């Protein structure tokens, strides 16, 4: 199902990340010198108050935004040196994204949504269909392959989004408030799924306000005002 890199291998390294936005002419410092390293098999929760820079850090780690200063390396590749095409390809094949609002395509079925990144990566039709069905079974949605996403509940949509994120066997899965739109019970199901994913070797970085999610992570990074103020490994 999942093909993890060897446990403990350095997956990601961020050095002295700064991010400054311009807002009505004023500089807003979202990140002020963040450095961190992630190893294969990590399950990292990034927590902190709203506006502390959690999502910005996730966007920089995922290569969907560029730092004002500093660098991010994923599996030895420095993102700042990549052009748009290479960066897009890296996101497609090495990273998986899960969003708070799912961002599934409503006109497609669950299966088609999961197939989408594989189609973009050039996976043959039969193979991607088989893998999409396998992933939907894995996230507990067997039998829902042909349902439009608009026919699914919030929890089910997030499961489809997780299956989509896993489609191209990513080295790292990044999630931004994955339980933020879900009720407690449904959020709990997603937590269980994340636990299982990590057990099966998927490296996870999750931005969250959900204390339950933070509690099950193997490493919790606390942020405040654009800086990492605490980095706790379970058992430390």
């Amino acid at each position, binding site marked *: 199902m999942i093909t993890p890199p060897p446990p403990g291998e350095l997956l990601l390294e961020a050095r002295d990340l700064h991010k400054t936005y311009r807002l009505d002419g004023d500089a807003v410092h979202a990140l002020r010198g963040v450095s961190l390293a992630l190893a294969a098999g990590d399950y990292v929760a990034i927590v902190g108050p709203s506006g502390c820079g959690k*999502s*910005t850090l996730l*966007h920089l780690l*995922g290569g*969907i*935004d560029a730092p004002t200063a500093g660098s991010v390396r994923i599996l030895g590749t420095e993102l700042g040196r990549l052009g*748009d*095409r290479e960066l*897009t*390809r*890296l*996101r*497609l*094949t090495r*990273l*998986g*994204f899960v*969003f*708070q*609002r799912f*961002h599934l*395509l*409503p*006109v*497609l079925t669950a299966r*088609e949504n999961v*197939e*989408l*990144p594989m*189609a*973009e*990566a050039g996976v043959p039709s039969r193979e991607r269909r088989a893998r999409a069905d396998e992933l939907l079974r894995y996230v507990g949605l067997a039998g829902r392959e042909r349902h439009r996403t608009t026919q699914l509940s919030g929890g089910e949509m997030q499961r489809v989004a997780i299956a*989509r*994120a896993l489609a*191209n066997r990513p080295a790292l899965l990044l999630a*931004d*408030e994955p339980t933020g739109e879900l009720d407690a019970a449904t959020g709990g199901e997603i937590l269980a799924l994340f636990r299982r994913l990590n057990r099966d070797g998927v490296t996870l970085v999750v931005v969250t306000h959900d204390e339950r999610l933070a509690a099950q992570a193997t490493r919790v990074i606390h942020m405040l005002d654009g800086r990492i103020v605490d980095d706790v490994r379970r058992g430390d």
Partner: protein
Amino acid sequence: MPPGWALRNLARHPLRTALSLLGIAVSSAMLLDMVLLSGGIERSFERLLRGRGYQVRLAIKGTLPFDTEATIPGIAGVLDTVRRTPGVEAAGAVLGASLHGRRGDSLVTLFGYGVEPGAQALYQLERGADLAADDTLGLLLGRPAARLLGAAIGDTVVLVGRLDPQLGRTAVERRLVVRGLVRWLYDYRDQPSIGTVLPVMQALAGHAGADRASFVVVRVGDGASVAAVVDHLRRALPRIEVNSVAELVERFRERLVYFRQLSYILGTVSLAVTLLLVVTLMTITVNERTGEIAALRAIGVGRATIVRQVLVEGTTLTVAGAAAGVVLGALTARYLDAILTSFPGLPAAISFFVPEPRSLAVAGAVLLLAGALAGGYPAFLAARAPIAATLREEAT
């Protein structure tokens, strides 16, 4: 990308898509009609003139055939000159005149053509037999005339020549037998026309028809130069207006230059409306899907895929709208043509809306290109949207 994604996206807002399709269909129909109209009547006129293979027309100086009642005097001599001209294969004179036919105790007004059956460009035989060159007892009827006279092939019809309204008596009366039913190529709709051999019509026309004709048609033989024949005839017959069909078409085209320009302007407006519709719809569609597009970009979908998708949606919309526009345009053209060609004095065989493959192909290509370009700007916007900023805006 999953097949039919573009279509499914268009189906997300059925009312909006339907209204846009309707708008594109209407403007495409207008564009089509303007393309057909811009050169339609010229093409139709040319086709009509060239239809019977006679490339030169002779008429009285300063007129066109049937423009006035003026006739060419000394027609026998003129025809002799024409037929002796090198390169001329055949020539025939035509005399047109108003006359009457008897139906019971009353007279009905008819239009008569005196023709030389061996060299004529005026009619096509539909039923029965054509006239022989020396058939001074034979008569050809158009269907409106046959209806008006209540006559069929084999019936005898009494034709009455020039009436003298002051004396109240007829100048000439002839009893002729209907040989055939013909379609008069230059008649306006429901014009009741009859045809006889030239001498009979000259006799029916009385003094006005003696050795006269309204015009002469000339066929130039294969290999001979039409221009050379025209040039020769102009020199030989300086009192006669000699024109090649090509020259007549050119004069007709010059007369219609404003008409054509108006068609081009209206066609361009239609094209612009189509363009604006597609741009507007696709921009709205893209703007309300910025979050979705940013998320797609985030998960690794390339700019090219996004651009292609938006272009496919724009082009699909344009093609579907244009296809409906072709049907609508064809129906409108047919309806308008029926109105325009019913104007008195216009040959019914003339059409204002004539399809011409090259113009249609150009219009179709321009429309498709416009659709693709119209999708291009929103596609550019979609592909260039900053991913993180868009996702942040979506989240707030």
